[in-house]
């Protein structure tokens, strides 16, 4: 579809009254403080692009690329503009006009194939470590990952040796009577960076009467591709995944990753599948997608009847893709409250972004760190010993934040804590 005809471009630009409410909400604007970083500035620039007042140049991409897609502006826009969708549409357009071989390779190949994705992270950091910047530059990696790579790669310090996928079977039966057939959408971040979340999720689901299916050949949800202007690849990935789940005949499709559930939401799939014959399938698929904590609290209404001796002081960080994209704030907290031994303490500005946002912490490292530092000081002010959140990308970033701020807290997904509570308590001495 032609850029001008894309629904967000066609319908939303004109709604912006430039009231500026988004300026003060935007974490990036909060750091940069100039209008080109403000969400209303992005809407303005997309309009300039649409109207041919600026060339679809890499410079324009750079301006729009400052947005970390946290959706805070979209969730709070009185005029109802999905600024991030508009931005994503423009990035795709700009990307088409400025093909970048390295980037095409990365997002068209590496990051569509799970195993390769893991490698890509390593290649980028290895290239830097071996002083092979030139090679990396030639294949377009440094262009994609500017800034201080050496520092940025520290975020990826602890890539676990084994993925979740390699440790979990495609089918896990329910313990006891089966209540639901549940498809588990194993996101890349969980799979490669936080396999313990997947193990905990499958364990908790099974323990609470769910048969769990993890389809073979599952691919990325497509979010990194949308964020990096590779809409065509995102579309292919979505269609591929739709078909996989179609065969399974499950009641629900759950994911522990806020970004995956946001990407697979009805609204986003409508955007991604616009103009294809998969619109209806997408809607039917999205109707079954649910965040894991929502499923555990609202559908299973789980009660955790185990005795725990120890206490956990926990604070919760709202991942942008749950709070802004889906308005989910209560269920993760409720799940935590239901875990015996948990004392939940709210941090100031729990819903403000941590600056992680997938590849952002690497592509815009400095900025991302400034946003992170604010988050960490809010989180640490609670004196919690556990920092819980529902997004592997946030977990990665917050872990790094703990290191940066020398705060000795454990960062984890609530389901991991729940699973820990289930573990048989050591025998009393």
């Amino acid at each position, binding site marked *: 579809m032609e850029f001008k005809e894309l629904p967000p471009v066609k*319908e939303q630009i*004109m*709604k*912006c*009254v*430039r*009231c*500026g*409410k988004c*300026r*003060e909400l935007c974490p990036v604007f909060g750091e940069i*403080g*100039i*209008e*080109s970083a*403000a969400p209303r*500035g992005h809407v*303005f*620039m997309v309009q*300039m692009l649409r109207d041919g*007042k*600026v060339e679809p140049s890499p*410079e*324009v991409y750079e*301006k729009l690329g400052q947005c970390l897609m946290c959706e805070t502006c979209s969730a709070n*826009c*009185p*005029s*109802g503009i999905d600024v991030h969708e508009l931005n994503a549409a423009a990035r795709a357009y700009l990307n088409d006009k400025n093909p970048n071989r390295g980037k095409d390779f990365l997002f068209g190949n590496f990051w569509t194939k799970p195993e390769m994705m893991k490698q890509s992270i390593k290649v980028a950091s290895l290239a830097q470590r071996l002083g092979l910047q030139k090679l990396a530059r030639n294949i377009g990696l440094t262009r994609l990952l500017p800034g201080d790579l050496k520092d940025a790669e520290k975020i990826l310090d602890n890539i676990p040796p084994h993925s979740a996928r390699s440790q979990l079977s495609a089918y896990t039966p329910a313990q006891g009577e089966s209540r639901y057939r549940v498809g588990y959408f194993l996101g890349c971040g969980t799979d490669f960076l936080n396999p313990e979340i997947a193990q905990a999720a499958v364990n908790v689901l099974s323990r609470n009467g769910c048969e769990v299916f993890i389809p073979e050949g599952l691919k990325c949800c497509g979010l990194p591709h949308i964020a990096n202007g590779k809409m065509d690849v995102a579309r292919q990935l979505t269609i591929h995944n739709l078909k996989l789940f179609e065969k399974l005949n499950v009641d629900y499709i759950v994911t522990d990753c806020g970004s995956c559930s946001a990407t697979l939401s009805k609204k986003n799939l409508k955007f991604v599948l616009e103009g294809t014959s998969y619109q209806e399938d997408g809607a039917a698929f999205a109707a079954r997608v649910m965040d894991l904590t929502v499923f555990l609290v609202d559908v299973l209404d789980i009660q955790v009847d185990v005795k725990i001796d120890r206490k956990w002081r926990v604070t919760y960080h709202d991942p942008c893709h749950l709070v802004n994209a889906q308005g989910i704030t209560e269920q993760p907290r409720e799940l935590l409250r239901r875990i015996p031994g948990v004392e939940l303490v709210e941090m100031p500005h729990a819903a403000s972004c941590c600056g992680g946002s997938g590849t952002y912490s690497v592509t815009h490292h400095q900025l991302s760190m400034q946003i992170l530092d604010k988050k960490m000081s809010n989180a640490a002010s609670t004196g919690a010993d556990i920092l819980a959140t529902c997004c592997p990308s946030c977990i990665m970033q917050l872990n790094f934040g703990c290191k940066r701020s020398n705060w000795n807290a454990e960062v984890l997904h609530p389901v991991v804590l729940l699973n820990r509570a289930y573990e048989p308590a050591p025998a009393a001495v």
Partner: protein
Amino acid sequence: MNNADIKKELVKMLGRDKVLIDDLDLMYYSYDSSFLTKLQPVTPTAVVLPASTAEVQKVVRLAYENDVNIIPRGAGTGETGGCVAVEGGIVIDLSRWREIVEIDVNNMQVVVRPGVIHADLNDELAKFNLFFPPDPGSSKMCTIGGMVANNASGLRAVKYWTTEPYVLGLEVVTPTGDVIITGGQQARCIKNVSGLNLTKLMVGSEGVLGIVTQIRLRCFPRPKARGIAMAVFDHLDDAPATVLEVYQAGVLPSGIEILDGSAIKAVNDFKPHINLPEAEAILLFEVDGNPPGVEYEGQIIKEVAGRRARQVEWSTEKKRMAELWEGRSITATAAARVRADGSRIFAGEDISVPISKVADVLRAIRALGEKYGIQVVNYGHIGDGNVHCAPVINPENPEEVELVKKLVDEIHLLAIEMNGSTTGEHGVGAARRGYAVLEHGPAVDYMKKVKAAFDPKGIMNPGKLF
């Protein structure tokens, strides 16, 4: 110096971080919230982001020596193109300069730099049981500098009035590059009648007389209690009539706001949990003060409003009050939601009329909307006669644009005819300068003389006010 040299010099003076000179960066400074700049954005020659009086002074001196226009800018939430370089020049963006210099608790004063955001200031003051009472709908995004320049007010002007009475003194960089302090160089007093009142002159001068670099504001003790009454009306006329009756009953609420039927729909669409009742109009009365007083006045409002209203809800519950107040503050932009392919425009949006004539005006605006086939959402500070009209159009449809321009013109003329003004708080800027002579007659010449005294070269925010 030509433009290229000026840009180079600016970078040399302030450093690359504080100067924008690339075409792409500059385009973003071609607009504010006005419909005018949505239709006609104008890109400045350069943008500077100073963070000290000395830096501002350097830029102004350079501009003065080279006859280059200078345009002060806050957050760009103004509705009149006031901060846009409509005749070209250097934009001085002060919104990053956010320092609260001092909170003088005993003297109930605060000293701030111009970029401080209104809501942030009040959050800080709350720690000391103080507040700066004017409460614009744009509280969370506009700067104190912008408020001073526009003499902004808002939802609590009924009782607390506008920004002006709170400004005790200013530091100003004049268009010739001098730095002056108004309100007494050393003064910390509240009352002060010494000298010509330049503070008063500067407040509301919309950046045409100088750049405000520091502001000394008077604060009030925070009221201990608050309550909100929502009165729901089946007939629009009953709302303004009730406002008069509440005053006549001896009550001065801290705010009285109106939302008409379409504004109610817009709010409910954006924030369904606020759940305003559908009606021709609702009034929100806010009362503040000590707890028994608030309750007492609340009951009077309930009784008086209840004579005409279908329903009156009185609440002192924090959550509900926050919802209702939020509902009103978001109306300004949520208004667009009444039409799927529409946008509200900020034009003709700020008329001010005698409170006795509000009912006539609301009826007349409704008739004008029908005449032009344009939906107009009405809301605003009815307690002081400041009615906000939000025409909702498709701004990309040239026919609608032409029609709405005529509608807006008629709204402005209506205000003047009704013994009112084209603007109650948003200012004149570039958008309403055409009405200056009609509103002020020969006084406009004297305004120009005052400006010339400050700004002999006419470089300070030209193309505004008159």
